[in-house]
C-alpha cells in the first residue's frame, strides 16, 4: 500500500515537473510558436501507450502459454491504460493540427493507424464484457489481443502507401531530422514521466482487477 502511494506521488510529481519543463524550460519553436509545446505531452503519451500495448501483447501470449490469471489481469490493466493514453494522443493531436495544418484531422498513416489501434483495443475491452466465464474470457480475449497486435504493423504499412501529412519522425528519423538539445531533454524527461505515470495507473488497475476477482470467487463460494 505504502509502496503504491509512493509510486503515485512520484508519478504525479514527475508529470508536474515534465509539464513545467514543457512550458518554461523548452524554448519556443520558431515557426509554430507556443502551440508546439503540446508536442511533449502528445509524443510522451504516444510512447507510453505503445509500451502499454506491448505489455498487453506479451501478457496475452504468456496467458495462452501459462494460463495464469495474473497475466490476464495485467493484460487488461495495460490495455485500459494504453487506451486512455491513446485517447490523449488522439485529442492533443488535433489541438495541435488545427492551428498548424489548418485542419483537425487528416487520413494520414500515423493518425489513421493510431485510430485503428484505438478501435482494436476498444473491441478487445468490449469482447471481455461479453463473455461470462472468467477462464474463457481470459483465453479468448488474449487470442484476440494477439491478433489485434499483429494487425497494427499491417495497418500502418497499408496506409503508408498514401500521402502522408504527419511530420516525419524527429527522433530516430533520417538525416536532417532532430531536435534542439533542450527540447530533446524535455521530451525524454516527459517520456520518462509518462511511463512512470502509466506504470502507476497499471499497478492500481491491476490491484483493482485482482480485488474484483477475489470478490467473484467469494461470491461463488457463498452461493455454492
Amino acid at each position: 500500500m505504502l509502496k503504491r502511494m509512493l509510486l503515485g506521488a512520484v508519478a504525479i510529481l514527475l508529470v508536474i515537473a515534465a509539464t513545467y519543463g514543457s512550458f518554461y524550460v523548452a524554448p519556443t519553436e520558431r515557426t509554430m510558436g507556443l502551440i508546439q509545446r503540446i508536442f511533449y505531452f502528445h509524443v510522451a503519451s504516444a510512447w507510453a501507450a505503445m509500451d502499454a500495448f506491448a505489455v498487453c501483447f506479451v501478457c496475452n501470449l504468456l496467458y495462452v502459454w501459462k494460463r495464469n490469471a495474473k497475466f490476464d489481469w495485467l493484460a487488461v490493466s495495460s490495455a485500459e491504460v494504453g487506451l486512455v493514453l491513446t485517447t490523449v494522443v488522439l485529442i492533443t493531436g488535433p489541438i495541435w493540427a488545427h492551428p498548424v495544418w489548418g485542419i483537425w484531422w487528416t487520413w494520414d498513416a500515423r493518425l489513421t493507424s493510431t485510430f485503428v489501434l484505438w478501435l482494436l483495443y476498444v473491441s478487445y475491452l468490449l469482447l471481455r464484457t461479453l463473455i461470462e466465464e472468467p477462464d474463457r474470457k481470459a483465453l479468448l480475449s488474449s487470442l484476440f489481443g494477439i491478433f489485434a497486435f499483429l494487425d497494427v504493423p499491417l495497418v500502418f504499412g497499408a496506409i503508408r502507401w498514401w500521402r502522408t501529412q504527419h511530420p516525419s519522425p524527429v527522433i530516430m528519423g533520417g538525416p536532417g531530422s532532430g531536435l534542439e538539445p533542450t527540447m530533446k531533454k524535455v521530451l525524454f524527461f516527459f517520456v520518462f514521466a509518462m511511463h512512470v505515470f502509466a506504470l502507476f495507473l497499471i499497478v492500481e488497475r491491476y490491484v483493482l482487477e485482482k480485488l474484483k476477482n477475489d470478490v467473484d470467487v467469494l461470491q461463488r463460494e457463498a452461493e455454492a
Partner: protein
Amino acid sequence: MALFSNTATLLGKELRTEFRSRELLTTTVVFILVVLILFSFAINPTSEESREYGPGLLWLAILFAASLMLQPCFLREQGNDTLSSLRLAVDDPFAIFLAKLIANTLFLLLTELLMLPLFAAFYNIPILPKLHYLLLVLFLGSFGISVVGTALSAISAQARMRELLLPLLLLPLLTPVLVVSATVSVSLLDREPVIQWKGIAFLAVFDLVFLTALWIFGEYLLEE
C-alpha cells in the same frame, strides 16, 4: 498428410451443408446487391467518380457481407454440439479451421463472381481488360477476410451479442485488406490500368501472417 485428408473431408462437409440449402450464398448475394445499389443512391456518382470510388464501395460491400456471412460458421456447430465431435475426429484442430476458411473463401469468391458483372453494369466500369489480375486481388482479399473472419467467428460464437460482436471485432482488423484491395482494384480499373504488384504482395503477406497465427493459436480457440 492427415491434415490434408482431414481438411478435404471437412471441406466436403462444409460445401455439402451449404449447397443443400444455399441459404448463405443467396442471402449474401442479395445483401451485396442491396448495398451496391444503396451506395449509388447515397452518392449518385458521375462516371469519373464511379471509377474512382466504385471499387472501394465494392470492397466495402464485400467486407460487410463477409461479416454477416461468417456468423453461422461456428454457430452452426453449436446446435447439436458437433464441434466436440469434430475435435475428436481430427488429429489437428487446424484442419477444422482450414476446411472452414477454404469453404468461406469459396463462398465469398462465388458471390463476388456473381456480383462482378452487375457491378460493372451498374457503375459502368469495364472489368474485362484486366480481369485475371482483378480475380487475383479478389482471391487474395477474400482469403484474408476468411482467415481472420473464421478465427474471429470462433471467438464471437462463444460470447453474448455475437451478431453485433463479430463485425465489431472483424472490421477494424481488416482495415489493411480494405485499404490495399480497394487501391489495387482502383488502379486496375483505371482508364490506364496499372498493376500494383506491391499491393498484391502485401495482400499475400497479410494472408500469410494471419494463416500462421491461426495455425499456431487455432487450437486454443476451440478449447472446451
